[in-house]
């Protein structure tokens, strides 16, 4: 058994850095959330939970939660289903997997802002590629970015475009780790592809699935770059998620205190969602029914 004394010294530089640039700002944000603080206004004044109660009575706050949940749920489930289908397809394919996998992955590594621009050139009304194609069939296309429903749909597609490749990559890697003797014995018993996938492979990679879903939900909660470039939260507030609303509060309206409170609520909400996800999947695991 080697001596472990002194190992903690290795943690000091990183620990100090994290304390300085991560924990201190975080604490400061929580502190600010208790103040009535307009940037450039008069001295900030302590108002306790005032920002929080103001938010809870703020219709725009509740509607931004609704839109966030809708966009996160829509995007993550689309990514998961599509990602799983493609990953299983790749798993079954016996040739050409490598080049296909590489090409499929490209959208994921495009800088998010640039990805949003690419999609904008597809979805822009009249001049975009999609509209040009639809119009050449003499059909009048919808205004993808200009009507609330379609704008939310486009934002979900934007997230899916960039993160389905990530799902494919991780799920494909996971499927390949499943014990092949289990799959073969199921096939001997006459199980088809669907049964093998849902009854043998998916249960085997459950921890991995839980992990990617948690990662994606957390990331989708703070999804910002693409919405900012695609719709800037519009039309009106149709795609204004919690992050977009926080941005507007802090950097457009300069209501630093209220924005901080909203940030803290976002943090709690996303932690709660992940906790719930883990609890539900674990209970199923223990065979509660």
């Amino acid at each position, binding site marked *: 058994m080697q001596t472990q004394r002194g190992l903690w010294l290795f943690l000091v530089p990183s620990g100090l*850095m994290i304390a300085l640039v991560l924990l201190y700002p975080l604490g*400061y*944000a929580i502190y600010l959330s208790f103040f009535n603080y307009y940037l450039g206004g008069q001295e900030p004044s302590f108002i306790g939970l005032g920002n929080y109660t103001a938010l809870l009575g703020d219709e725009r706050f509740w509607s931004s939660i609704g839109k966030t949940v809708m966009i996160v749920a829509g995007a993550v489930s689309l990514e998961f289903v599509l990602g799983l289908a493609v990953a299983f397809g790749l798993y079954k394919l016996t040739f050409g997997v490598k080049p296909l996998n590489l090409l499929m992955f490209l959208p994921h*590594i495009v800088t*998010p802002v*640039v990805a949003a621009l690419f999609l904008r*050139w*597809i979805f822009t009304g009249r001049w975009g590629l999609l509209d040009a194609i639809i119009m050449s069939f003499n059909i009048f296309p919808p205004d993808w970015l200009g009507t609330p429903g379609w704008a939310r749909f486009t934002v979900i597609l934007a997230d899916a475009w960039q993160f389905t490749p990530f799902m494919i990559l991780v799920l494909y890697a996971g499927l390949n780790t499943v014990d092949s003797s289990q799959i073969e014995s199921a096939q001997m018993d006459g199980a088809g592809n669907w049964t093998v996938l849902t009854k043998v492979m998916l249960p085997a990679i459950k921890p991995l699935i839980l992990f990617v879903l948690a990662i994606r939900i957390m990331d989708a909660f703070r999804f910002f770059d693409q919405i900012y470039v695609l719709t800037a939260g519009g039309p009106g507030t149709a795609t204004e998620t919690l992050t977009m609303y*926080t941005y507007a509060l802090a950097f457009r309206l300069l209501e630093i205190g209220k924005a901080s409170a909203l*940030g803290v609520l976002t943090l709690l909400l996303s932690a709660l969602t992940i906790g719930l996800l883990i609890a539900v999947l674990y209970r199923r695991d223990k065979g509660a029914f």
Partner: protein
Amino acid sequence: MRPSRASQTLLFLALCAFTVVNLTPIIWAFLTSIKLPVDAFSVPPKLIFTPTFEFHYQVWVEKEFWRFLINSAVIAVSTVCISVPIGTMAAFALSRMRGSGSRGILFGLLAMRMFPHILLAIPFFVLAQGLSLIDTYPAMVLALVAINQPFTIWMMRSFFMDVPLELDEAARIDGCNLWQVFYQVALPVVRPGLWITCLFSLLLAYNEFLFALVLTGPSTKTLPVAIAEYGAEDLNYWSLSAAAAIGIMLPIVLFMMALQRHLVRGLAFGAVKG
């Protein structure tokens, strides 16, 4: 069971179709960047045209996008130079420690990786303004180091976990102190992992938008902020901004193609394994 040739071909074609649809936005942007406006806005879209690289030249040379490239490079490289060495030391310790303390730290780091960035952007903005650091490199670099640390530590830890403890013990018996074990024994073994971590941190910093939007200004603006501001509205600038967008994307694509083998580990920052 051997899959039939027909079903394999069908599957292959289906996956090809998915890939083509998936790549359309990139291909379309590239075509737009080498089209004259006359060709770019024709309905139905033109596929046969005379290509021109004039816009690529204009955007990088005449519109001085190289300035933003320099800003991006300075910020990303500084971030890596601070974040990776200290993160690597911490990762070494965490890969050698046992007990609930180190588990707690690791879980805490994972939780920090999940913070909504907007929540950090607010205090960074207020503090940077108080210290007159807005539109300077240090503000942006420190913010990026903050969001980089959890990632760097988790990823490097997963590489150190592969270094057998016997190697440490043998070195101890030969009289190495802890620092020598780290620097002369463990670090050389994980060198490939170290490079991968550097490249992923570089990428994280290069792609960052929200902090750059809030903390940089006219003299430190990075590429993502520049392109987001540049002529997306005005149809006259379509070809120009498409050229810039393609140019921004290109180095990353080349990077990642080279790193393909390590993607899973990098993107999941080692947590799948941890």
